[in-house]
């Protein structure tokens, strides 16, 4: 599971960075979204992966911490999702504004001279 998880994050980051470096605004926003998914998965993974491990204690459960998932990364991911989502939405609005004002979707607001 760890290998698949790591591969998924790596693929997301690679695709995200590649798209982020594209000169078109839409690709940049897609790249940022992919990076934010990768980051969130990464935070989640830092709480250690495991199966059948609830983050809260059942009343009849044991007290060993190995039985439970770490709840903190889940809280962090939740916050990071909210913040990342909001800032990406804002970025989308700015992107649309630039598209409307400059008439092109190039990140510099004008087509490169060829």
């Amino acid at each position, binding site marked *: 599971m760890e290998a698949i998880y790591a591969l998924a994050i790596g693929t997301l980051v690679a695709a995200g960075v590649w798209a*982020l470096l594209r000169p078109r*605004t839409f690709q*940049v926003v897609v790249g*940022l979204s992919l*990076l*934010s998914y*990768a*980051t969130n998965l*990464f*935070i989640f*993974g*830092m*709480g*250690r992966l495991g199966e059948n491990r609830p983050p809260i204690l059942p009343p009849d459960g044991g007290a060993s911490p190995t039985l439970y998932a770490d709840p*903190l*990364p889940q809280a*962090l991911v939740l*916050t*990071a999702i909210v*913040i*990342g989502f*909001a*800032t*990406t939405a*804002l*970025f989308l609005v*700015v*992107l649309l*504004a*630039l598209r409307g*004002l*400059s008439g092109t979707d190039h*990140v*510099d*607001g004008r087509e490169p001279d060829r």
Partner: protein
Amino acid sequence: MNVIAPHLPILPIVLPLLAAGALLLVSESQRTVRRSIALASIAGQLVTALTLLYLTTDSVPEIWSRGIGVYSLGAWPAPFGIVLVVDRLSAMMLALGAIVALATLVYSMSHWDRPGQPFHPLFQLLTMGLNGAFLTGDLFNLFVFFEVLLAASYGLVLRGVGTVRVRTGLHYIAINLFASFLFLIGVALIYGTAGTLNMADLLGRVQALEADERALFDAGAWILGIAFLTKAGSWPLNSWLPGAYSVSMAPLAAGFAMMTKVGVYAVLRIGTLLGEDQAAAAILGEILYYTGIVTLVSGTIGMLATLHLRRLVSYSVIVSSGLLLASLGLGIEALTAPVLFYLATSVLTTAAFFLVAGMTDRTRLFFDAAGAEVPKAPPASSPGAVPETGTRALPGYMGFGVHEPDPYGTEEEVGTPIPIAIAFLGSMFVCCVLLVTGLPPMPSFIAKFALLSTVLETAPAAGEAGAGWGLVVAILVSGLVGIVALTRIGIRLFWTVTQRRTPRLHVLEASPVAFLVLLCLALVAASGPVMGFLQATARSLHDPGTYIESVLSARYADTGRGTQP
């Protein structure tokens, strides 16, 4: 006092939040009400910050012993709950931020906060993010407050009209979003290895790490450091800064003066908490020095390369960041106090200079939305030009665009009285130039002098003689180049302008600038006590034991709940 004082640390966060909420409820047309709310909030923050500053000086030992105040939110003790920590460094940064915010807000009230987009709520949220970043005691909330202040600044950069603002805003947002993801990855790595996010709890956990986990932790600290350097405007990561700072409105750029210093603050805070020797990568270690030097040099070159005042001031922000990072990167404890002194003066300087730049923009007749000059033919009715109704032929030199007084005219005055607005602007400009370049009698001179002499004294003993000399040369050369660049632009702005329109200066605009400059002069007069305070700050920073102990031992007693278990 004893009842309120323990709850003071939360006020710098709650006040602007409440004010921002209230401002959203008041309609745009009720300008007086909006301005009063905004001003009351900033004034409250300033009073709170100054009180906290007083409390951290050990003058009132019965409230906070050892100059460190800890506020446990929800009364949860430190390693598990969220804490706000006030020590001398945070209190100083809070006070600086509140002073700059006050000056900026008053300045913007002249006409910059006109209806259109919500200026006041965003500005309040910007101060909330700044205050929170200085106060928070754990890494994740540092991220949250960074995002709060950045989100507000995104909105503020875009304020106004013009494609150029939207374009630079887009670059600014993209780079900072990327840096935020780096921040999160760093935080996640640190949590995954050390198992804590509380800054005070980190050191003990790190020292207990196995070698392989330790490598991962160091990688996390490095990634975090890269995120901080991006915010601080350090060299390869600062391409967004001159654009974003020079196109945003003048008072906002002044308010942003504090933002790059948040990055420097974070480097200093976490770097000193992790310690020089205990952690291999106490936030970038030696690399910090080299990045700082390159930042200093690149900012200096930028200053020399631009003829646009606001861009030039933006580059001077980069120069000051570079100076701070390079000095911190030397890793000499004795340097911290002069570095902090320089940080304080540089914040006030940059704010004042951006405000002055906002006013000098208006002495120009033509400028585009970004404030940059647009070449355009002068109108025939401008002073000095020959009236079209005249019978004489146009003198030859007029063809070159030189508008000297008409040699045949008799109606022309020989000497023109200097308008008081231009005199004020000119003198403030000179003060700002002296401040930026660090010439006497300004506090930045004292800061640079203390910095240089300390480097020369202590660097050889610390085995950093070469690096120390490198820093000395870089600082001196950048100061000289700064004088050249600023003199050149000063001549362009105040001497060689033939098409000047005397700007009408509002008292609301002039007074904040004068206030900041006078405050700098007061800082010179009080440099002895200030330096003493900063040395105490440096001592407590480099002795993280006190900080760690204060934070981790804070229980319910500190939140005024008495002695519950």
